[in-house]
């Protein structure tokens, strides 16, 4: 059993989930509360990774991040490392690719909480940040859990974007899905079976957890 790709996949999914928690939460909050007319455009942009072929995303990310590009050359200057075909580049690609899986559940959770409890918190002298942390976040706990689990699982399952942006470098970009692809290409079906069955079981368990959580935590009546 190869632990390298499994460990790398877990690390990529965990880092991506943490980064998206940090970036997706304010974006989802803003989308849930804004009344701006550009909201549909932002929502459409956020949802694009759901419908675009991963090759399209991968292609543009490659162009955006390669060492000759503005972002890519800055990164090389700062770290001495390339963004393409590296773990850092994979994180960026995964963040873009999994964005809707973080933002959409959070946005619906925040919208479901609504303004009423926040106004109640404000009338009890809680500042907006205080009310967010002590009222909105706990009331959206299920949304955070769903969003995190889906983001993690979706990142584990990505293939096309990883192949385009990261390639197949052991210990750096060779995640489980890429390893399976290579095993199949080289006709090592037994190894492909182990990893594939593992991913299948993992994905099922994750979805089972998400759906069970949706049943077990009743929506808090206010």
């Amino acid at each position, binding site marked *: 059993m190869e632990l390298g790709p499994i460990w790398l996949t877990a690390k990529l999914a965990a880092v991506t989930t943490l980064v998206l928690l940090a970036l997706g939460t304010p974006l989802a909050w803003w989308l849930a509360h804004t009344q701006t007319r550009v909201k549909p455009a932002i929502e459409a942009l956020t949802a694009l990774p759901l419908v675009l072929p991963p090759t399209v995303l991968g292609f543009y990310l490659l162009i955006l991040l390669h060492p000759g590009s503005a972002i890519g050359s800055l990164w090389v200057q700062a770290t001495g490392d390339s963004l393409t075909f590296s773990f850092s580049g994979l994180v960026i690609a995964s963040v873009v690719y999994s964005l809707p899986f973080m933002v959409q559940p959070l946005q619906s959770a925040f919208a479901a909480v609504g303004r009423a*409890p926040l*106004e*109640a*918190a*404000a009338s*009890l*002298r809680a*500042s907006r940040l205080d009310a967010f942390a002590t*009222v909105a976040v706990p009331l959206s706990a299920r949304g955070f859990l769903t969003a995190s689990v889906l983001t993690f699982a979706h990142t584990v399952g990505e293939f096309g974007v990883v192949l385009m942006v990261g390639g197949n470098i052991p210990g750096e970009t060779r995640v489980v899905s890429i390893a399976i692809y290579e095993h199949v290409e080289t006709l090592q079906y037994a190894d492909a079976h182990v990893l594939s069955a593992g991913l299948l079981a993992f994905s099922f368990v994750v979805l089972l957890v998400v759906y069970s959580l949706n049943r077990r935590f009743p929506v808090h009546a*206010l």
Partner: protein
Amino acid sequence: MPSEVLELDLNTSLGAFDLEASLDLPLDGITAVFGPSGGGKTTLLRTIAGFEKASGRIALAGERWLDSPGRVDMPPHRRSVGCVFQDARLFGHLHVDGNLRYAARRACPGGATVDEVTAALDLGSLLSRPVSELSGGERQRVALARTLLTNARLLLLDEPLSALDTERKADILSYLENLSVPMLYVSHAVDEVALLAERTLVLADGRVRGFGATREILERLDIQSITGRFEAGTLVRARVVAHDPQYHLTTLDVGGQHIVMPMSTRLAAGDFARVRVRARDVALATARPQALSIRNVLSGTLIDLVTEEDSPFAEALVEVGDQHVRARITRASADDLALRVGQGVYALVKSATFEQ
């Protein structure tokens, strides 16, 4: 000591709704905010609390909360105001205890403690309960307790007692009356307003239609057309003369004349009571009627008579000593009796209720 005021000078559009209010509200006791639904009661409270974008001026005892020309718009959490919302708005992720402590932790110093408020509102048995298991009335009591804990300088109560049963309501009303915090109390129930508030603000279509002592407001005809004729009536100040245990009646002195009402043992002889007499429960006669089951016949002077062309009814105001009684009769009766302002009439009071 000059009484402090809440200055309101609002002229603001909120979506399709316009709110216009310009008045100085004394910061003592309870001010009822009264009017038909959709009249702007809740909007006024939300604007004072800072939940609605508004233009104009709001200042509490000189502290500017909103001053559009001066670009002051204090965020809600910094305004020293406590809100009890119609829908309680307890935090579902906390138990009752947690909801109360949430408020206590952020309160202005010097207020009541959780234990004191818990005792006052009889919440001891609820403290460890999740809020989803509370009844509507229990929720409102917890919400009220939570708001009282903030020790705010002004309380805004939006129909806080609508979900409570009568007995519990009476308990909480008397508790509210004894608080020293000034309150704006929204209600659409005349009885509640009459019972609670010394001062009443009437709002309809986003405009102030009346503001003053509750008794005077409830007697005004133009306001009664807003608040609904069915509820029109007057509050009468009466002194208890004696109880008659045999017939279960209490005799009261109203403007020097006697009326009898179902006995109220809460009152002792000599006590003053507020008695509400609804206009539709009063008939008029130009001579003292005989052989009548109605025992309460007050002799007085007709001081106002308002008829409307497109209505079958006329509203008469009768002065009885230093008190007023309103009667709602048909326009046809008013013409048949040839009623004129200034003439002596007898007000036949079919029923009256104690307010306190």
